[in-house]
């Protein structure tokens, strides 16, 4: 079940190419507006490319003169919101996919129950979506997406809208169901990338700018965005340095780089000072001693 994508969408400034091997889960990282949604839209059949093609498991999804509509692609999409059909029960929601593809009612229900069990949601089967919490609803949505037995599963920041307390449990569910499955997960959370993905690609400005095994891409970042994701500063020479290893002073020093304070934010028991592309973490006492404010001239050592 190999997936290859190579497409251009002029109106969104996107020129994307990507290959996903059978059974591989790929995490897509990138800033807002980088082109992640466009990529999912192209694969799900919600965005029409100006040129290019997409092939899933030997079958052309789109290409010159070919356009397979969303419902015949075998591509399921799990979004930020669960979007369970409000007029159907949880069980009917999960059985919706199999029913739509022509599976009989009893068989569909059996399949739905099996998938609800897989995501630990059997007890909600007879409930209405309005009676579920956000995390419960998203678990049902996962079961619903998988009950169609998709050739490719797309996940669009599936945990971004959830309460942080339920995220670990849902991540565990996803880890279980994504094992050995061809899937693409768009995420902002580096933990998702580490736990769920075999490989990571980084998108910026509508193009794939970095790609490789998760650990390689994230531990040795080659883009400022990837570096920021793992909390590292990417230096002009390609080295990385942790913000806690950067020292700040208000007077010029040998070997220091001059800059202007762009932002100050409190992070737990540290204060992060942003200077251009670089971040420095200071102890609160040190920060107070320096008396920094945005716009101040500073010198950084690392």
């Amino acid at each position: 079940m190999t997936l290859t994508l190579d497409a251009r969408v002029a109106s969104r400034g996107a020129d994307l190419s990507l290959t996903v091997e059978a059974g591989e889960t790929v995490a897509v990282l990138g800033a807002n507006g980088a082109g992640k949604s466009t990529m999912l839209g192209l694969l799900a059949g919600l965005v029409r490319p100006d040129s290019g093609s997409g092939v899933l498991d030997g079958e052309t999804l789109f290409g010159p003169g070919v356009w397979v509509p969303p419902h015949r692609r075998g591509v399921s999409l799990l979004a930020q919101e669960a979007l369970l059909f409000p007029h159907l029960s949880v069980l009917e929601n999960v059985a919706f996919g199999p029913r739509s593809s022509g599976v009989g009612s009893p068989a569909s229900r059996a399949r739905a129950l099996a998938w609800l069990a897989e995501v630990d949601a059997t007890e909600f089967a007879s409930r209405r979506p309005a009676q579920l919490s956000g995390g419960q609803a998203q678990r049902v949505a996962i079961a619903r997406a998988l009950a169609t037995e998709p050739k490719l599963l797309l996940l669009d920041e599936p945990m971004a809208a959830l309460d942080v307390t339920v995220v670990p449990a849902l991540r565990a569910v996803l880890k279980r169901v994504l094992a050995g499955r061809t899937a693409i997960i768009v995420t902002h959370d580096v933990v998702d990338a580490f736990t769920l993905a075999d490989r990571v690609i980084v998108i910026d400005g509508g193009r794939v700018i970095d790609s490789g095994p998760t650990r390689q891409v994230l531990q040795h970042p080659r883009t400022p965005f990837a570096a920021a994701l793992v909390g590292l500063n990417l230096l002009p020479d390609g080295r990385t340095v942790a913000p806690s290893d950067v020292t700040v002073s208000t007077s010029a020093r040998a070997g220091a780089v001059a800059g202007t304070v762009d932002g100050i934010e409190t992070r737990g028991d540290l204060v992060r000072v942003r200077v251009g592309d670089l971040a420095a973490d200071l102890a609160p006492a040190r920060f107070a001693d320096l008396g920094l404010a945005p716009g101040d001239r500073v010198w950084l050592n690392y």
Partner: protein
Amino acid sequence: MKTLGGVPRWVVVIACVGAAFILLPLVAIISRVNWSQFIPLITSQESVAALVLSLKTAGISTLLCLVFGVPVALVLARTRFPGQRVVRALVLLPLVLPPVVAGIALLYTFGRQGLLGSTFTFLGIQIAFSTTAVILAETFVAIPFLILSLEGALRTAGSKYEVVAATLGASPTVVLWRVTLPLIAPALISGAILSFARALGEFGATITFAGSLQGVTQTLPLDIYLQLETNPDAAVAMSLVLVAVSIIVVGLAHRGANPELFRP
């Protein structure tokens, strides 16, 4: 005492006058009813024939409104094509058109000398002076109510559920029946009820296009108008019946519009 909820007192006063303006005529009708003769008046053969015809034609019109109005609303709300604004405006035209103008327009469309008249005559179908003409007139004036209410609901509901359904393998037809229509069911019901009410009250287009014949084209409003000339007591009694039916219909529409289903 109920609170005014921040509404200026003078607004409340004007509101009372406005409400009285609507309610007083209803009270006036009730005060004019000849109660001792009420039952015989509304069960007279002529009245019953008119009421039955009215309910029948309004019912069939409502079905036609659904059959043709739902697709129009879907196309207007979900697709994009050149001239869409113009089409939307024109489709809603019967809403503001004087009914008599609607009657004339229908006459010149489906009448013997009309645009489609010769086609129908060729097929052996005579529309003018038939119950079909009444149904056409009622459908013409009632269908914008359904389209308006559905298009609004479709836009509010958005297409996100439909997108999800498609990625779950549902064809557009399955999406329509199992997702779109159930989601807009409240608007569908209230729109249908409003259309029924409008069809029930149709007068101008009917008298212009369909004529008036007991049991065939003489609906309740036509009968009331005619009775007013000779038997005002019967006209008042039948008016009250129509008021009662309308109140029931409005009540149902309010229930149908209950937004409960929309809550995620």
